[in-house]
């Protein structure tokens, strides 16, 4: 890696949209954690620095408020973050010669937004692509942790009625889904998810997530031939 002013500035410029997004969303997740579960800023730091996952940062507020079986936590984490398992595919070749510790850090910080910027890889000519990507990864990671911790600190320090702030998580998921629905091939799987979750909710109102995931996976595998046909179109 070779850090120059030019490449660091280019990374920063590319990361500005992420800066705004992560600070705002992290802040909301941090407030929620402080107000709903009462967990301190140290937990906000520990969870955001180690998992680096937006949806998870919101969901864990429920788990930090009402004790949940560790199996549920593991399974839900797998299903919301399963997409990460494929993010490495376009990066395997490019990262082949990275020292293992650096590679581990790049993998740890591989969020939706960081992945998009690293795949885009618009490093300035004559500069080192890996330096550019590493700087983006570190900046994005930093924004996220600062957002969550600042939110948790604010949630503890400022007295205000936070009732209803948990809608931020609902809105986050709706926005992600609305963007995904622009891609035609995402529509059928979204319907499967909706149907599966409604079944899960009807059968197990108090513990809907695991049954819903099982129903959804079964449906997706059963409908594979039809969904893949629509994929090919």
């Amino acid at each position, binding site marked *: 890696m070779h850090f120059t002013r030019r490449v660091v500035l280019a990374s920063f410029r590319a990361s500005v949209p992420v800066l705004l997004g992560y600070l705002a969303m992290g802040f909301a997740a941090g407030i929620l954690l402080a107000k709903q579960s009462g967990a301190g800023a140290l937990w906000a730091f520990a969870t955001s620095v*180690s998992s680096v996952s937006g949806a998870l940062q919101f969901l864990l507020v429920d788990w930090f408020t009402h004790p949940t*079986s560790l199996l549920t936590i593991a399974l839900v984490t797998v299903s919301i973050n399963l997409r990460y398992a494929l993010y490495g595919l376009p990066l395997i070749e490019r990262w082949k010669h990275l020292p293992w510790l650096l590679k581990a850090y790049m993998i740890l910080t591989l969020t939706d937004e960081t992945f998009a910027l690293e795949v885009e890889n618009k490093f300035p000519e004559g500069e080192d692509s890996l330096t550019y990507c590493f700087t983006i990864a570190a900046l994005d990671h930093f924004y996220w942790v600062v957002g969550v911790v600042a939110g948790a600190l604010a949630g503890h320090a400022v007295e205000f009625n936070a009732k209803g702030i948990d809608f931020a998580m609902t809105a986050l998921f709706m926005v992600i889904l609305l963007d995904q629905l622009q891609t035609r091939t995402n529509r059928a799987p979204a319907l499967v998810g*909706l149907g599966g979750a409604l079944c899960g909710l009807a059968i197990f109102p108090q513990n809907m997530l695991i049954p819903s995931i099982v129903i959804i996976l079964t449906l997706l595998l059963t409908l594979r031939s039809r969904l893949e046909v629509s994929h090919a179109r």
Partner: protein
Amino acid sequence: MPADVTTEYLLLATAIMFLVTFGLRSLVFLAFGGGRKPPQVILYIGGVISPAIIAALIVYCFRNTTLLSRPHGLPELLATATCVLLHLWKRNPLISIIVSTIVYMILVQRVF
């Protein structure tokens, strides 16, 4: 199920979330670093799971909404409409999320 939110439970929960998320992210590097191709079924599930799970999580977020008694899910309905319409119009995630959350907070705190 654990009886209480203890430090030990929070530590375990944090560790599990980290291990699972990091494990998923490293999976392809470990499994397909040598140039082997992932099986078709994995690629298929990886391609369709995200919209399915996000849709399921939206249902999960609404699981405690009361439909049969007052306010009959009206705050949720209005805030959802705000979020969806704003997003279809502006396509700006931050605006959609912040405005609809504020609408929802006002509705549940002041109106209903």
